[in-house]
């Protein structure tokens, strides 16, 4: 399908703007004027509508079908959330309004959303306070690292490193490094699929600023030693960070705050059903315990005695601004609506059925595929296609074959510690019929590994493209359509 710039026709227009109704003529002096041609495409509205409709048809979303992308929690995004996010009282609200005189009073509805959502998320995670400002999960991690650094700086602690399990998401070590710390990887006990406690005890020390954990881990296993890990870290005044990527597994069943975690981030786009948007925007609120509240980013939302809401900037120990405004507000708004709709029992049901669906799939697949850690899993589990790989069919081939069966593939080659990993997270939204159809497809693929591997290694056949050449892409670096190429 042509890129949009190839469709451009000189002189064609897609939007009509009003005639200028003022007598003045603004003028930009030659010295400041653009000397190059703008070269945006020239199309009619229908040209644009057809182009993007055609593009949308080359995409697969949760609304198209089963999307068991491990670690990403691709649950259903209820349409009511979109209706809430269309309300003009929110969409048309300028973020500088609170900076006007008594500006807080002009945005009471929006501030209430922020305030109430912070309280709900604090209760869900067992933390004392929450900031909604981080704009994504990784941004939440960085904010958490900055909070921890501020805490240690304030106490005069000389801390230099952060300990992170080797199965962690790449954002963890990256966020810690950007926060100014050296990173050391703690090994995972391959049998239990959980952190090697002895190794942790040997590595932790006075230099340890923080231990970052994902629980359930990326292997989908809940670490029962969690309280002990927190204790070991706290003995050295290391802060314990909870990566909430997998929070969907434990809603209403475990709260990181109760286990002693000091900082937690949540991914609203995973756990709280806000759409993933083709890769963002998400939101990564951060919760903290009392001893870290003073360091939280500004502004903070407060509720005054007269039940009005206000933004407060007066926190001298705050790490300062981490985002321009108050977070990805429209994402927060959707998450708030989702929590209100589900309520306490709905949230518990969500985690319960997410875990039930994952265990059901794992049990139905375990005879034909190797489960990386064969024990009760939480919301996701990891298969290893090591045996299939020996026969020439790799995890990527299974993924591509699943596309031809009508499913979005699982996450593959992650976590890095499992060879030929296929990480499957069904979420609670999916019906038994869908899960059974997925099992049928996986069993069919399993049979094909020996019978007709070429079907798998040549898949997918049903898509507009088949295995783009990534080496060529990286070497050629064609990342923008050249000017004056095929254009009229």
């Amino acid at each position, binding site marked *: 399908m042509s890129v949009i710039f190839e469709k451009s026709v000189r002189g064609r227009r897609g939007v009509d703007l009003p005639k200028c109704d003022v007598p003045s003529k603004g003028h930009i002096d030659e010295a400041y004027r653009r000397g190059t041609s703008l070269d945006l495409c020239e199309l009619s509205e229908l040209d644009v509508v057809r182009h993007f409709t055609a593009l949308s048809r080359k995409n697969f979303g949760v609304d198209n079908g089963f999307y068991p992308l491990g670690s990403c929690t691709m649950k259903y995004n209820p349409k009511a959330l979109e209706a809430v996010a269309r309300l003009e009282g929110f969409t048309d609200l300028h973020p500088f309004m609170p900076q006007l005189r008594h500006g807080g009073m002009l945005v009471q509805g929006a501030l209430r959303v922020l305030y109430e959502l912070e309280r709900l998320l604090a209760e869900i995670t067992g933390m004392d306070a929450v900031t909604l400002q981080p704009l994504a999960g990784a941004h939440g991690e960085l904010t958490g690292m900055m909070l921890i650094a*501020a805490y240690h700086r304030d106490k005069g602690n000389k801390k230099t490193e952060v300990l992170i399990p080797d199965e962690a998401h790449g954002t963890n070590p*990256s*966020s810690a490094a950007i*926060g100014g710390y050296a990173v050391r990887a703690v090994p995972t006990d391959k049998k239990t699929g959980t952190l090697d406690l002895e190794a942790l005890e040997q590595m932790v020390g006075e230099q340890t600023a923080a231990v970052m954990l994902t629980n359930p881990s990326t292997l989908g296993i809940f670490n029962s030693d969690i309280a002990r890990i927190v204790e070991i870290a706290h003995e050295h005044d290391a802060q314990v960070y909870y990566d909430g990527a997998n929070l969907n597994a434990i809603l209403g069943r475990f709260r990181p705050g109760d286990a002693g975690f000091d900082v937690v981030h949540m991914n609203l786009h995973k756990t709280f059903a806000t759409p993933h948007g*083709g890769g963002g925007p998400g939101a990564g609120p951060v919760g903290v315990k009392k001893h870290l509240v003073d360091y939280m980013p500004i502004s903070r939302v407060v509720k005054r005695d007269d039940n009005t809401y206000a933004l407060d900037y007066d926190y001298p120990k705050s790490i300062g601004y981490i985002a321009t405004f108050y977070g990805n507000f429209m994402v927060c708004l959707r998450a708030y609506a989702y929590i209100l709709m589900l309520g306490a029992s709905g949230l518990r049901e969500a985690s319960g059925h997410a875990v039930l669906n994952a265990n059901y799939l794992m049990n139905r697949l375990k005879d034909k595929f190797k489960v990386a850690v064969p024990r009760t899993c939480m919301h996701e589990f990891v298969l290893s296609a090591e045996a299939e790989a020996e026969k020439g069919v790799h995890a990527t081939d299974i993924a591509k074959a699943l596309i031809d069966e009508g499913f979005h593939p699982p996450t593959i080659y992650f976590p890095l510690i499992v060879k030929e990993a296929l990480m499957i997270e069904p979420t609670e939204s999916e019906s038994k019929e869908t899960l059974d159809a997925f099992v049928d497809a996986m069993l069919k693929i399993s049979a094909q590994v020996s019978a007709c591997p070429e079907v798998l290694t040549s898949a997918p056949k049903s898509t507009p*493209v088949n295995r783009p050449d990534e080496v060529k892409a990286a070497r050629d670096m064609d990342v923008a359509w050249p000017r004056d190429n095929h254009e009229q």
Partner: protein
Amino acid sequence: MSYIPHTDEQREEMLRTCGVESISELFHDIPAELAPESFNIPEGKSEIEVLSYFEMLAEQNYSHLTNFVGGGFYDHFIPSAVDALVGRSEFYTAYTPYQPEVSQGTLQAIYEYQTDICRLTDMDLANASLYDGGTALYEACQMALRATGRERVILDGGVNPVYRKILTSYTANLDIQFTISPVSHGHSDRDKIFDAIDTDTAAVILQNPSFFGIIEDHSDIVQHCHDNGVLVIQSVYPTAMAMLKTPGEIGVDIAVGEGQSLGIPLAFGGPYLGFMATTKKLARRMPGRVVGRTVDRDGREAFVLTLQAREQHIRREKATSNICTNQGLCALRAHIYLSLLGKQGLLDVAQLCIDKAAYARERLDMIPGVEVMKASPTFNEFTVSLPMDAGEVVGAMVEKGFAPGLPLGRFYPGMENFLLVAVTEKRTKHEIGMLAETLEAVLCQ
């Protein structure tokens, strides 16, 4: 409503397959002593109840004021087709295009978006977007520090004061030194910037138009910086790029900016769109996702995520940034917006903005006691001085239905009487006239 499809019979059957009798048995790895101490969340509500609650909250917001507030975030017109197309759930319910075969829609759109940004800024290549304009500036700063191996950054006083605060908070735990060079009569102060440059200076950060709305030709600063091995980062307003000298034209090394004005609602601050573009030379230092064009097994044109070896999921603690997502749907919005407006449309928007701003300048300047700062050229936003505290004036204007601008005292102590006024293509002659009349009346009181 919990959106769970299981019937009781199905649940029983699935539990049997798992070899357990209840869902709670599946949670046996959670020690009993770690059961939640509380879970005080209200019980669920129906869609009708939730919608009417949010309608009530939305009505409490003064989104209906006639808006002259800007400060880098503008009330531009968004054509209906933008929402119609972005609302296609094949786009918004998908995730990161890791599997290119089922994501060609997202991938091609991002490739085209990258092209838009390159053409707007005249830079060689752009990434798939960052969180917002402020964090994009921070990422650009990190990129310059890494590329030069130096530790100082000079920040021009014309840069958005909120961005300035973001930069300093991110670097509190790092060995990075910031020098702020105040503006002189609203202009970047060449002498001060040049004096501040030393052999440990990685970059100079500029903004065009400046926070005060002033437009500049920064060519001379770029030249001086390059002579000293210093990189130049410029934050730009994309709508103004239709008309103003581009970062690429003057040799800027990293161009960034806030993409909100490209079809993204003001939405109380987000989600927005941070764009970033750079030169071929710095390509592999650029953080964030990038989409490349290639061919598939059968030789067909195809799009994929590329240059991933710089990113956190591969490089972990050595990555160029910890960023994982982009603002995919916001980038898509910007791309649809630019496709609809096209070359002439964006120019028309820019011309309407400056014409109406010129009219507003004239009208406000005629009010006794009000002085428009005219020493420097502006685009669609300008600074006026009032005979009294701008905050108080704004307070009175709000009661009459206007958000007349942003009082500057909040950001610049000593500038309590100054107001920053923004005018977009949406404001009519009548509204601008009413703004002037109301302001005059308020000042006479």
